[in-house]
Each structure stands twice: as C-alpha cells, then as structure tokens.
C-alpha cells in the first residue's frame, strides 16, 4: 500500500501552526499533507521537518479544531504544486489555489512545483527596456525596466495601493503592443483594499488580463507563506511559456514576513533581528529573485512588491532585507502626504538600480541621466537649506541659495505632484524637469552635458 492511501491517526501534538505526526514512514521533506478533522473538514499542510518515523507539519488553514485523537493525516507523495493554464488569466484564486469566483475550476496544462527553480545567471538577460509608468518621480528619477523588482516602501495609512493601481493601469513599453498580464497577489490585506484593486481593474478593463491570488486579512495566516509562490509560479508560466509581459504586484510583504516569524517562533528557532528568522533574507530572495528576463524568450516578469514599514522605519528588518535584494526602492513619506502631495514619493531615499541601462538616447532621451542627477542634487541641496532657513531665516541666505530653495518647493509642487489619473509621457516629465532646472543659474547645472543644456534649456534655447 502506498503512503498516499494511508490515513495516519497518529497525531501526537499540535502547537501554534504546527502539527506533529508520529509512527509514519517514507515522508518527504516539504511534502503536502491532507489533514482531515473530526467533523470531516479537510485542510492542507506541508512537512517542515522529516524524521524517519515522525514529521513536523505546518498547517496552512490554521490548527483550530485539530485534536490528537480523531484528526488524521494523509501524505500525498508530492511537494506543493500548482496547476497552470492560460485560462488562469482573468480568474481569482484563494490561498490554496482553488478558484474563488463562481466559474468552474481550471483544467491545468501542467502541474508545477510552487518553489520553482533558480534562474541560471547565465540564462538571464539584463533588463533594459524602459517601462513608462506615467509617474514623473518614477519615470524621470527611478526608472522601472522590464524584468526589474522595484518595491514600494510605504507606511500605514499612505496611499500605496492607489499608487500601485496607477502603475498597473498606466505601465507600458513605448511603441510596443504585446501580450500583457498582471498577477496580483494579496497577502493579509483587507477586503476593502482588495476591492480597490478589483474595482480599478474592472473599470479599466484590466481584470480580463489579471490573475488574482487572494488571502485577505481574515484568512489563515500560514497560507500567506505559499500564496506568493503560487502567484510567481503562475507568472513564470505566463512569461516564459506563453511569452507574456507579466507585472506581479505583491502586497503586503510585511504580512508575509509576520507569517514567516510566526512559524519560526512555533518551531522555537533561534531568532535573528527583532524575532524574524535568520533565514528571512534567503526566504525573501527566493521570491524576489523570480523576477527577470531570460535570453531568447520574449516574456518577462516585473515585480512590484509593496510593504508597510512598521513605524515608518526603513531600517526595520522587512524593508531592510527587501532593499538588499530588490533592484532599488520607491519610498513614500508621511510628511509629503500631510502636505497633500500625491504621490508622496520621498525622492531622496528612492533608487532604481537598473535605471542607467534603461535610459538615454534611443530608450528615453539623451539628457535623461544628466537631468535626473541634477534634479537629485539640486533637490537635496534645497532640502538642506530648509533646515538652515528654520534657524537663520530666509533673509540670511545668499541669492544663489534662495534659488535652490525656490527650486525645492517648485519641484515638490510641479514634478512630484500629479493627479491619480494623470499619465505623463517621459517627454512631458523631462519638459517639466527642464522648466524647474531653469530656476537655477545655468552654471549650476554641472551634472548635465553642455550640449544638452544648449539643446533643452528653455531660457538658453529661446535666446538662440
């Protein structure tokens, strides 16, 4: 008799999200377990630690109602797999991969291990195709490219969901019409937040090309561990088998990390920083690194993970470890939000590591790199002067410094600020940038090549 048919009733312990089964044999590490409760309800689990005759199992739907007498466990002989198919596009799934909408289950074309396999670094194609999001602070200063993983670091109560929806709505590669899909993975967000996305996708017709994986705030926590893996397995299938351009939105990674900590604590592991497990970096990397492009394949996976920084602290382990893996970050700031600036993107701590290769002549425009550096430097200087003004007053400033101060204000008002539905082209973004830079004396524009100053500076340009 194979293990698949045996119902073990030898549960010897239940602890937090974990269940311990004894008297078993031939159980594989990470194997999926079907658990039947006394009342017939079925739950799913996964082997976390395998011994010769014992296994420690994490139960995805929670351990409430489990007992050591009547609960039984069946080991299905394989690791967690997701059936993938092109029909998944336009559908909604729950944390165990079952459809949540009223339509019938999909007929999988293939079943894939949700843990995936690492992309061979030799097989990767370096991402360099500019994605226009229509948001000036991103396109102009922290350019997103296809195959990049660019997270949004936010705080509780900031409009990161609106921003993510706007990116999903507006993102496009210029001059190309290609099969495009959004994979939306919600971990522990509220019903209301999920609805915002669903409605937005509905209104713009994007729902038809979206795959949703939902685990809402009131759904079992432990499912959050497998949810992004399913979403990414689906994304990999769409991108690398069906040649689609896939945008993956993962929200909220903070809830994911909390779930990870919960399991680590239940297993009495030696904790790393702030109680999070020491392997959290590796674990997060196993998700984020699934973004990318592959040589000779048309499709791509671009990831936008979102996380709320506990207490707006960017050094907290969740944003910190994320930042070490992802290719940059977009940081939202409460101060800007209070000033009624949308999107409240704090430009200075933002970064896009793949920007340099994605911009310039033939991609965006030749002056892009210089303009971006100049905006950064000038805004940083203007921002510093604000502190000085607070102490000595504006009158104590030199003429030059006053210009920088003026620039910093105008930058926030005209460059950063834009409407939730305003879709600026990269040329519009650069035009605004030049208007702002013309506030400063031309001699201060040291980061821009002289040729471009002559070509694009609105004042010098009009003189000639």
């Amino acid at each position, binding site marked *: 008799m194979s293990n698949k048919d045996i119902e073990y009733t030898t549960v010897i312990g239940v602890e937090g999200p974990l269940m311990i089964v004894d008297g078993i044999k031939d*159980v*594989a*590490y*990470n194997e999926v377990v079907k658990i039947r409760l006394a009342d017939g309800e079925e739950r799913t689990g996964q082997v976390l*630690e*395998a*011994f*010769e005759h014992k296994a420690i199992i994490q139960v995805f739907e929670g351990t409430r109602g489990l007992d050591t007498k009547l609960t039984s466990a069946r080991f299905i002989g394989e*690791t967690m797999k997701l059936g993938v198919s092109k029909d998944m596009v336009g559908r909604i799934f729950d944390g165990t991969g079952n459809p949540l909408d009223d339509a019938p289950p999909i007929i999988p074309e293939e079943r894939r*291990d949700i*843990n*995936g396999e*690492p*992309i*061979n*670094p*030799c*097989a*990767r194609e*370096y*991402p360099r195709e500019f994605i226009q999001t229509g948001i000036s602070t991103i396109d102009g200063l922290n350019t997103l490219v296809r*195959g990049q993983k660019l997270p949004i670091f936010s705080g509780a109560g900031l409009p990161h969901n609106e921003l993510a929806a706007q990116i999903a709505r507006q993102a496009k590669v210029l001059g190309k019409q290609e099969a495009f899909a959004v994979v939306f993975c919600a971990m522990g967000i509220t019903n209301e937040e999920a609805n915002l996305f669903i409605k937005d996708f509905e209104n713009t017709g994007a729902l038809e090309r979206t795959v949703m994986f939902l685990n809402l705030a009131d759904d079992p926590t432990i499912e959050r561990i497998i949810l992004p893996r399913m979403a990414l397995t689906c994304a990999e299938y769409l991108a690398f088998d069906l040649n689609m351009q896939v945008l993956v939105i993962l929200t909220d990674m903070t809830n994911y990390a909390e779930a990870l900590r919960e399991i680590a604590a239940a297993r009495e*592991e*030696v*904790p*790393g*920083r702030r109680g999070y497990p*020491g*392997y959290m*970096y*590796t674990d997060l*990397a196993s998700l984020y*690194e*699934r973004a*990318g492009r*592959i*040589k000779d*394949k048309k499709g791509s996976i671009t990831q936008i993970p979102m996380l709320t920084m506990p207490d707006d602290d960017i*050094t907290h382990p969740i944003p910190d*470890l994320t*930042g*070490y*893996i992802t290719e940059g*970050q977009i940081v939202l700031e409460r101060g800007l939000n209070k000033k009624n600036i949308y999107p409240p993107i704090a430009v*200075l*701590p933002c*970064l896009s*590591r*793949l920007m*340099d290769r994605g911009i310039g002549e033939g991609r965006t425009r030749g002056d892009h*790199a210089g303009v971006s550096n100049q905006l950064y*430097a000038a805004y*940083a200087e203007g921002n510093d002067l604000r502190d*000085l003004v607070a*102490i*000595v007053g504006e009158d*104590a400033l*030199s003429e030059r410094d006053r210009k920088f101060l003026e620039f910093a204000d105008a930058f926030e008002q005209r460059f950063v600020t834009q409407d939730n539905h305003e879709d600026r082209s990269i040329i519009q973004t650069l035009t605004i940038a030049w208007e702002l830079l013309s506030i400063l004396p031309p*001699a201060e524009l*040291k980061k821009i090549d002289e040729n471009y100053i002559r070509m694009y500076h609105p004042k010098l340009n009009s003189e000639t």
Partner: protein
Amino acid sequence: MPKIKGKIVRISGPVIEADNMHGSKMYDVVRVGTENLIGEIIRLNKDVATIQVYEDTNGLKPGEPVLSTQEPLSVELGPGLIANIYDGIQRPLPTIRKETGDFIARGVESDALDRKKKWHFKPIAKKGATVIGGDILGEVQETSHIIHRIMVPPQHQGTIESIVKEGDYTIDTEIVVLNHNDKTHALTMIQRWPVRKPRPVKNKNDPSQPLITGQRVVDTFFPVAKGGTAAIPGGFGTGKTVMLHQLAKWSDAQIVIYVGCGERGNEMTDVLQEFPKLEDPATGEPLINRTVLIANTSNMPVAARDASVYTGITIAEYYRDMGYDVALMADSTSRWAEAMREISGRLEEMPGEEGYPAYLASRLAEFYERAGRVNTIGSQKREGSVSVMGAVSPPGGDFSEPVAQNTLRIVKVFWALDADLADRRHFPSINWLKSYSLYLSEVSKWWGDTIGKDWLKLRNNAMALLQKESELQEIVKLVGPDALPARERALLESAKMIRENYLQQSAFHEIDTYCPEKKQYEMLRLMLKFSQLIEDAVSKQVHIDDLIIMKTYEGLARMGKVPNEDYPKHFKQLEHDLEKEIQALIKERVK
C-alpha cells in the same frame, strides 16, 4: 578504502542527518539521496553525521542513501578557469544551462574544466630534472594575455622521468611522470585542492605597491596595496556593488576573481554581459579574459554560499602561485555570514551575538588571512599576491553589527559607504571622514617615486581641507554661510571643488569611470592650486561670489571628463587660464 554508506534519518531545510556513517571525516563530501545531491559533513556524533546540502532538499526522504566520497570539498585547477562562470561548488553554469535549461535543476554533475578542449602545452622543465611542489613544468596560453603556468602540485616532488613534447593536449592527458623514492606518479594539467585549506607559500612579504583602481577616492585617499585587504560596508543603495564592479573592472591586477555570494542574479548577468565588451586599460584586451566568476545568487542553495567564498579564494591562490597579482572581490561577505548563521541555527548551536555562530570572527579572519603578497613555493623565486576586497551589508546600515565589526578588526582598509551621500547622488559614496587605509605609508613611496614627489603632501593637504570643511559646516548650519569671514568661505569653496569633482566620480561616464594615476595627481594639484589662488584673491578683497562664477571654475569641475589621452595639454591650458583670470580679478579690485 571501505565504502561508507549511510541513510538519511532527519531533514530540516538544507541540513540533514544520516546514520551509519562511521568512519567519515569532518568536511568530507557526500552524495545525498537518490538524486545524488552534493553535501558536506559538518558534525559527527557517534555514527550520525550532520550534513549541509549544497542543493535544494525538497522531496528528499528519510531512508534514502548517503554515500561518502571520503574526500574534502575540492576545486579543480587548470587551464580553462578564466572567463568561466561557476556556481558555489565550481560547477560551470554555462554547461549546466546546456544540460538542464534556463533554470538550475538538482543533482547536476559536470566537470569544472572542459575535458575535451585541447590546449597548446609548451614544456619548460627538462627530463631528469629534480622538481618540488610549485616548480613550473610548462606553459599554456590560456587567454590572449594570460600564460597559465603548469606547476608541480604542492604535495608532489621528484625527478622528471618523462615530459611530453610541445603540442596540443587535453587537460587530463599525462604530461609528466615524476619519480620519487622509486615510486612514479603521473601528472596532468589539472590539480585538485581542498577549498578550506590555504595553499602553501614560502613566506609572506609586506605589501608595498598600491593596487591602482582608477578610482580617485580610493587611490588617492584610501589606497589598498597589492596583497592587501579591504572592506566596503554600506546599507542598501549606497553603491557597494557598483564599487566592487568598478574595482573588478579597473584594478591593475592581472587576474580578477569575482565572487557573487548571495546577491542578485541580474548583477552577475551584468558582469557577464559587460566584461567581454570592456577593455582592460593595461592590455587593451576584453576584461573577461582575466576574470573568473563565481555566482551563488541569493536564491541559490544557502549552503553553497559558504562554499563559494572558499572556492573563489582557492582559485585566487592558484593564480598567485603562478606569480600573478590577483584581486578577489566578494559581494557580499554578510550573506556568507548569514549562511553560517542559518546552518548554525539548524544545528541548534549556542548562538553568539545577533544569532551568529561564535566562530564567525575566526572564520572571517581565516578567510582574509589568505590574502597577501607572497614568495611562492618552488625552487625558483617568484612573487605573487592576492588582494581581497569584501562588501559587507550591515542591517539597517548600522556598522555596529557583528559582521562589520569582526571584519574591521582584520582588514586594513575601510571604505565606509554613507547613505546620506548616496541619497544626494554623491558616488562613490565613500565617507572621507570615516574611512581609513593603513597602507598609506607603504604605498606613498611608490607614488612619490613614480608619479610626483609631493604626492603625499598634496593628499594630506586635501584631506586637511575636507576635515576643516566639516568643522565649518557645523557653524554654517547655525549661522548661514554669509556670516563667515571671506577666508573661510574660500576654504568652503575649495573643499566643495574637491568633494564634488574629485571625490565624486561617475562609474557610468565613459571617461570618468577610470582615472589614470597621473591624471589623478594632476587634477588634485590643480584643485589645490585653485584653493591657494582663491584664498590669496579673497585676501586681496576679491569677492568670493565673483570667483566661483569664473570661466575656469567650470573647467576645473569638468576635469574628470577630459579624455585621458589629451588631458596634459588641456590641464596646462586650464592652469594658465586660471592664473590669468584670477590675476584679472585682483587687478580690477585694486583699481
């Protein structure tokens, strides 16, 4: 040797336990399970061996076999290493891709070095000669500029009974037969060496030559010596990786080993795609022709991260033994430390600080100690060096954490990356007030002799200027710059000139990315001259605002971007114009 075959009794992530392993040695390599995954023994308790597995353990079952190879983890050394890219346990990634596709499957076996390729071998040693470990038997032209010296492995010696004629051979062809105490031993072009054991040297010398990196802030202010060690700690986004890439690209080492340890896949791709296109400034050859890459990205199995660092340094030592200057970059040593922590946690060892194992400090020290300028083994006198530069990724950018602190206790150069500087796009974001180099006095003789006698004086003057600036900035924060006396304002402007146009250097500008040492010297000299001249001018009542709008001011600011071929002429003209322009301003004032 009797076979050691046990079976798995426990699996917990990358760590497994197997019983019936009596006779195994610590750090022996084992093959795990039916898929033949590669692992290494890291603890022995009676007949139970604890094993870290270098591959994903998903689906592994207790009861599956474990077979010991009874050999420690070793690398293959021989022609064909250069321009290759390996994973942490020296499996060639291009070959793996050919065999298993775009994603890395498990249980792949592949020779590190191509057995089929023929290399042109030129014998040097003669029949009948007595040789010892390290002696050169012959040469192979490995890439256009690298001659691969085929050496007697350190553990061998004897009289050459036979040696093949010049010709094309595969690396596993027997090329030499040694006779030692009437026992013969055949040698091929391959050596094997256990990664955790340093390769022997005759003796270590003190570093005295700078490793020129073409990065102004490094070469001028915080130089590293050939055979030296340096650490680059910095939070995320401060530019560690770009900095290491710059060092890998432009360092004047003959061989570069780049270890991507637990970092991003795209970064390795970047190196793979860029290096064949970039030219080595010393030879004009593509950079890839002097580079060996080790890639164990963050999503690849964690145990192999530990191995990747050792694999890298062993290959570095091998080329050092041929007499080359080798530079090794490890990005990032924190990920390696985290791998140690993860494995240690699975072993339920008593944790030290922040959950890191208590042996963290000694492991780091052992690793960095493998750097150095040495006289190699062998009967001829030969000198080689391994310089090691390691990135450190401290959580939250806080340097007080264990990995950064333990590293700083060992290394001689500290390039402190600063998030504040990075935020304002001051790159490389090396903080000039916090960083230090203990090689300064060693290398200043070289600079003085080769580039300019007053090099050290210029460097120290510039440093003093920057130091003074930071003190003045404190006052400026309180009263504003206008309240300062003219002389202090001139000093601020001079420091700003150095900060913005000397310390800052664009890695992405085709000229600025690499600054030859003579040009660095000339730039610094001119900037300090500017400093002197404006100080003099303000003392003659010239207003500082008039000085910073000078035409030559802009010329000075753009010196880094002047093409490396015609800078001498250009700088001369600039110096002349500068003097004239300031003279004119003073004259006007006197009127």
